């Protein structure tokens, strides 16, 4: 452990696997995982909408499970594997430059407008479909109820969840 030369604040070395690559940075204990991803690692695809765990925009996958990165400290992520929106396509096995099935489904279904909440939905839906590969529209609606969107009225996001399930089936992922 080192200290910040100006402030004397204790710094901790955090090593995490992010989108398949090992990333290390020195951060104070209070650094949120969301700020760690955005500011320390430059992964600005993860968005911070409320910083109190309600909106879900900052959701990332921690060891494959959806987690609100604004409610987790970076030091707690030590040794864990994190997937952000930037890594979703590769995680799905899509070829370089292609999109993952959930991403493609959101485009096909017009499941995003301003796009700010979208990364949180994509990560949430990715994890959901891994354990629930064939949801009904009602189940899809329930599955995304922890993420807020102000633009779409959720209609096309529900459609996108069901479409993503079809694409995963088609691609044999």
């Amino acid at each position, binding site marked *: 452990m080192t200290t910040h030369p*100006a*402030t*004397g604040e204790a710094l901790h070395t955090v090593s995490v696997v992010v989108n398949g690559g090992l990333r290390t940075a020195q951060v*104070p204990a*209070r650094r949120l995982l969301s700020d760690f991803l*955005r*500011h320390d690692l*430059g*992964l*600005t*695809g*993860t*968005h*911070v*909408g*409320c*910083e*109190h765990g*309600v*909106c879900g*925009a900052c959701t990332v996958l921690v060891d494959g499970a959806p987690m609100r990165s604004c409610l987790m400290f970076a030091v707690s992520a030590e040794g864990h594997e994190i997937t*952000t*929106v*930037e890594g*979703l*396509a590769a995680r799905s096995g899509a070829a370089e430059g292609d*999109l993952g099935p959930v*991403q493609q489904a*959101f*485009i*096909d279904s*017009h499941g*995003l*407008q*301003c*796009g*700010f*909440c*979208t*990364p949180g939905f*994509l990560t949430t839906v990715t994890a959901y479909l891994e354990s629930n590969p064939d949801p009904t*529209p009602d189940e899809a*609606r*329930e599955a*995304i*109820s*922890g*993420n*807020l*969107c*102000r*633009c*779409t*009225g*959720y*209609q*096309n*996001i*529900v459609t996108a969840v069901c479409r993503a399930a079809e694409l995963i089936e088609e691609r044999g992922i």
Partner: protein
Amino acid sequence: MTVVDDRPATEVGSPRRRKEDARLIVGRTRWTDNLTLPGMLHLAMVRSPYAHARITSVDADAARQAPNVVAVLTGEDVKDIQGGLPCAWPITPDQKAPTHPSIAVDRVAFAGEIVAVVIARSPGEARDAAELVDVEYDELPAALELKAAAADQTLAHPDLGTNTSAVWTFDSGAAGTGGDVEAAISAARDGGIVIEREYRQQRLIPAFMEPRSFVCDPTGEQLTIWSSTQVPHFVRIFTAAVLGIPESKIRVIAPDVGGGFGGKLQFTPEEVITVLAARHTGKPCKYTETRSESLVSAHHGRDQWQKLTLAATADGHVTGLKVELLADMGAYLGLVTPGVPILGAFMFNAIYTFPAYHFTCRNVFTNKTWTDAYRGAGRPEATYAIERLMDELAVEVGVDPLEIRERNWIRHEQFPFTSVCGLEYDSGNYEAATARAKELFGYDDLRAEQARRRASNDPVQLGIGVSTFTEMCGLAPSRVLGSLSYAAGGWEAASVRMLPTGKVEVVTGTSPHGQGHETAWSQIVADRLGVPFEDVEVLHGDTQVAHKGLDTYGSRSLVVGAEAVIRAADKVIEKARVVAAHLLEASVEDIDFANGSFTVRGTDSAQAMAEVVWAAFSAHNLPDGFEPNLDSEATFDPVSFSFPHGTHLCAMEVDTETGQTTMRKYVAVDDIGTIVNPLIVHGQVHGGIVQGVAQALWEEAVYDDAGTLVSGSLVDYTIPSSADTISLTVDQTTSPSTTNTLGTKGVGEAGAIASTPAVVNAIVDAVRHLGVNDIRMPCTPERVWTAIRGASGSGGPSTAAAASHLGAGAPNHDPDSGAATQGGAQ
């Protein structure tokens, strides 16, 4: 080899997947908060916890000593250079307004107002140091409740001597556009029907998902401002005007912007402060608000009391409508704050042929967050009032609510129709939209089910709500806006640039933040110029690229902004036609243009647009005197507003034992003229409907007795989640607009305007037989339950009380009136 061309015959009307999504879906986004510039400093605001207080001292010494703090600026530090924030819409010549400092100097007028800013090397250090700024306040009495404020019981700004900012009146008799309302009401009191109601439009918060963020870089020749704004052009003009910086030295960029809904139609204290901090330090500065700051300091919306008097004949033909509003401005006048209720002034008459109309609005200051535009801005309030009243009139007459509307609405053969407000509605077909909505809804079956449930005293009752709305949007006609004392015009600008390789750049003065302009404008231009959709690049949101524009709000982008694009494209074609004629050795009059190709009429000689573009670029062989340039600009200023309309039907189930409401079915059939992209249209309608439903059922900005916003997080300000929504049925009928080339009408606000009264009408309809004729929004289970328990006697037609309670001093929504027996509507 066969080439399969799966392109649509025309791009317009095709459900193109959005171009924007390619970057948004992979996190390749450019939100303002994503920006990091060399040497960038970070801001944290110190905000007042008091609604109204005198600032007696600000001690920032400890903050200035904190680690990595570069500077602290207080109101005292900047009072001579910060100017005052502008209001662009003084609705009357004698309108009163306090000066509006970005950093309060000696007094704060709402909880959340900024009193100091800390500038530090990291956001965390700025926030830590902000805690160390010691501000001493002398608390003053706060004007909080709107009616008490209107009565000047406590003054929000003592120096003004009153809380009334302005009173604005429209009277159809005086304007010569209709008859005398008082005469209509007097006549109706004798054998006709007079319905008097008072409705509450609760205060709402736009609650866009991206918190506002501002970056200012003072290090270049120009001051560059990145802002999560709907209105970069306004930000440029007002930064120049407020801070005395030459406009030519300011560049404003709205990069990816995460929703707005009117909430980012503003020139904000935070923008000014970020510029002040950057100029003070000489370094790039960034401020990104927290969600709690956003909810308390980004402007709010709605917040009106509506006193309504409707006169009708005994058989339900409306003879006059009188509207008396109190509108809560909050503590200050923002960019268009005073004009928001005025935008509703001409819409209370809605789709109807009312012969007489009177509107008065009193704009009132309180010590709360200031209000301003929120999706619909004035028109949802008007639509709510009239659509609630029409349901009440149907009950009085004893007919179906759709029947009462049909008796009063403008028939499709009457278009173009000049309303009692003097506005000319260009096109519409209320009969067609309503017929389609009834069919999709299964109206008759649901009415039958409702009757069965009533007969069997089912504890869960069914109600059907109707909302047949229209709105004036496409905020535009500069002359009309000028006649309403709005400071700016309403035109929109565009340019079309033909690149040598045949690609096309479209520059638009609109500034999208989720609406898909890049896609829709590409579709329009692809058709117009006969080029592939993919070959069109739409540029926007940077005053150095799109130097001229009036931005995005009021459902104006398609009907005004895209029309400018079309006209610029047509100018390109006309220039190219001259070149084509030259190359084809024909006369210009004989040249036809279609599908991207110029042909000589009656021959098979042709020149593709790309060939003509190259010829203009190389300039080797052009007609004598022809300027080698096909690029064109256009500025479009329409002569009229856009008047979309629609019929929305909602079925709500109400558990009479708990007050719980559940949406059973929702059908929206909108007539928005020609549709450019049905996918985007459905998205706009969906989102709008859910925001409007949220006003009916869930959302309210609530203040405590001390003037503190208690719904100050997304835990307390309950915007809906997916679990709160059902699958909506959305369809369209089409009456093309006659005021633009494609026949389009605005769609951005339609859903939010239409849905609120549909939901409340449905809830009231479900429990009307229990004696309820109104429930105040948001219709929480507690309010519904209380209304049912408080109801007495029959809520059916024609009780004497229903026609006279205002006279008896018992307005429906006012819990303090002491006589809220009309449906127990607290």
